[in-house]
């Protein structure tokens, strides 16, 4: 039974939008690189050149592909199996989160001597936030104790957790679901709703009540292909407008990197713009992502030849195995930072960690793809599916 389901939405090239795989792969690489705090090569990633970053890309495409995968199962096998599959994925993420929590705990013990240095102990305490390990452990199980730099994982966990509840509405009334999601987003921004963290007083860095909008937007775009096509249609004025917004964002983002440039920032503009909340998915970030998506869609057509270039293949491979590669990437970024901490933080090691991490992600994605095809029992009547594909 599982074999049938896998085959139905499996890895055949036919009808699969390579752009989804490519840009999700790119987002996964960026997330990996960005989550190594000491990595200078994070300069290469999109967050330094605009308001939105890989998170927006990843959440939107995840919403879109979740709709591709689960809506199909839902249509063919009913709600039960689709829900079970989504929950299974959510469970995988949760296990990854707990694994990372263990790695985090081990790292805390390793670096304790740094916190014991008066330089840091004075301001940070001697790991004051780890004063009660038993409580921290229990809070970690509840996703309330948050290891640093892992916040995107709990967001994805809850999004997949509630996705089965959205499925029926998504299948029948995608616009209604999108409207409901937009209302929740607006109310969240208005009233500041968020989930709590441990220790008391904190909140989720990626507010799921706000970020769900981008996820649902992706899912709804899959179910409203006509609307999506109208929105993405080439228009000169919209391209110019989007391009201008991207350029303005670029100037802004670059000004944050250089103190000497930020001195030139006009006072009134700063007051108007800041803060640009990442936690609550600021509309300026959302707009930046949409502008970026529009411009990219003008360049990347479904039949663009460059999507099939060998250079794009590693990205496509990673994007195609998104869930395991995402988990692996988060783990590798933690491991990478550990290497920089324990061994050597030089520029060369940063470069090596970046390249080796991306290589491991790509290799794993390829291995998984091979495993999925190889482990599948050989079956003759493959022609039967071909016809339904188009």
């Amino acid at each position, binding site marked *: 039974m599982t074999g049938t389901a896998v085959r139905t939405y499996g890895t055949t090239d036919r009808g699969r939008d390579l752009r989804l795989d490519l840009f999700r792969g790119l987002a996964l690489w960026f997330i990996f690189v960005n989550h190594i705090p000491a990595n200078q090569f994070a300069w290469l990633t999109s967050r330094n050149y605009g308001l939105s970053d890989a998170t927006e890309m990843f959440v939107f495409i995840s919403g879109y592909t979740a709709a591709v995968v689960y809506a199909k199962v839902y249509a063919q096998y009913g709600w039960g199996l689709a829900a079970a599959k989504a929950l299974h994925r959510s469970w995988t993420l949760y296990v990854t989160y707990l694994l990372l929590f263990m790695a985090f705990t081990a790292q805390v013990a390793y*670096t304790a*001597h740094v916190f014991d240095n008066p330089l*840091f102990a004075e301001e940070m305490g001697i790991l004051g936030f780890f004063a009660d390990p038993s409580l921290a452990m229990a809070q970690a199980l509840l996703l309330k104790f948050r290891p640093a730099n892992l916040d995107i994982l709990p967001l994805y966990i809850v999004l997949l957790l509630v996705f089965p509840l959205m499925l029926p509405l998504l299948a029948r009334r995608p616009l209604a679901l999108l409207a409901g999601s937009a209302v929740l987003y607006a109310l969240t921004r208005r009233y500041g709703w968020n989930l709590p963290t441990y220790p008391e007083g904190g909140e989720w860095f990626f507010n799921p009540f706000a970020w769900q909008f981008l996820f649902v937007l992706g899912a709804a775009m899959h179910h409203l292909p006509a609307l999506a096509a109208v929105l993405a249609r080439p228009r000169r004025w919209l391209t110019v407008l989007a391009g201008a917004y991207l350029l303005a964002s670029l100037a802004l983002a670059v000004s944050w990197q250089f103190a000497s440039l930020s001195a030139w920032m006009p006072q009134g503009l700063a007051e108007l713009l800041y803060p640009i909340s990442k936690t609550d998915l600021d509309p300026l970030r959302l707009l930046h992502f949409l502008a970026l998506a529009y411009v990219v869609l003008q360049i990347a057509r479904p039949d663009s030849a460059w999507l099939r270039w060998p250079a794009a293949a590693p990205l496509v491979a990673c994007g195609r195995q998104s869930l395991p590669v995402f988990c692996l990437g988060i783990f590798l970024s933690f491991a990478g930072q550990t290497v920089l901490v324990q061994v050597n933080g030089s520029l060369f090691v940063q470069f090596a960690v970046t390249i080796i991490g991306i290589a491991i992600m790509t290799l794993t994605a390829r291995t998984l793809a091979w495993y999925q095809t190889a482990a599948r029992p050989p079956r003759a009547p493959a022609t039967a599916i071909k016809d339904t594909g188009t």
Partner: protein
Amino acid sequence: MKPLAAALLLLAAGALPAGTAHAAAEDPCAIPDSILTVDAALPRVQERIRNSRTLPVLVISSAKMAAGRTAASYPEQLGRELSNRLSGHKVTVSVRSAPGATTQEILPVMEAAMAQERPALVVWQVGTTDAMRNIGPDAFGTALASGIERAHAGGADIVVMDMQYSLQTSQLIALQPYVTYVEWVTQNAEVFHFPRYEMMRHWIDHGRVAVDAESPSEKLKAYSFVHGCVGRLLAETVTAMIDRAAEAPQ
């Protein structure tokens, strides 16, 4: 893979800060302009100096200062350096700290201390506790803006100092979003952001200081280096901003 690696390397070479070229400068504390640029003035300090030839400084922090080390700490260094630079003026530095307090929680402490000390300049060290306790960056930014307003209302100029940096601590505490908020809020309020996080990162990346030492003497060396440099550069920027205020048309 190879052409990709080469492309990454090329791009990186272009994208990395250019400040590394003259890293051989004599002063181990030296920080490039791309990190530390004086972009604000201190009109209230300037006025106080002109009228009374005094500069009372108040340091607000969430640190737990150990009794034995105060002489090496940055507030002490700041006082000494400022006195040297402003000869003929009476410089005093007092420190109020509320260990483990968030930015919101420290606001009343700051207000009480201001009423008592009547400082012309407040140096506010922020963010560490907020990051460790996952306080929402938005709430942190709001509290920070409110503190700056209160300092100005109390007749003092303010300098905001962000968090400390190390490879090890940044793995366990996500400080960067809070540093970004400090930059935004200070820019909105036109006050000076003293970028300690990026400065320490610069020193560590360029091998000026090693913070992962195990022996007590090495630890003390790192402590003295960082606090010494922070105190001196803070004094340098404060005097630069006083001069700026003096030049600006009133």
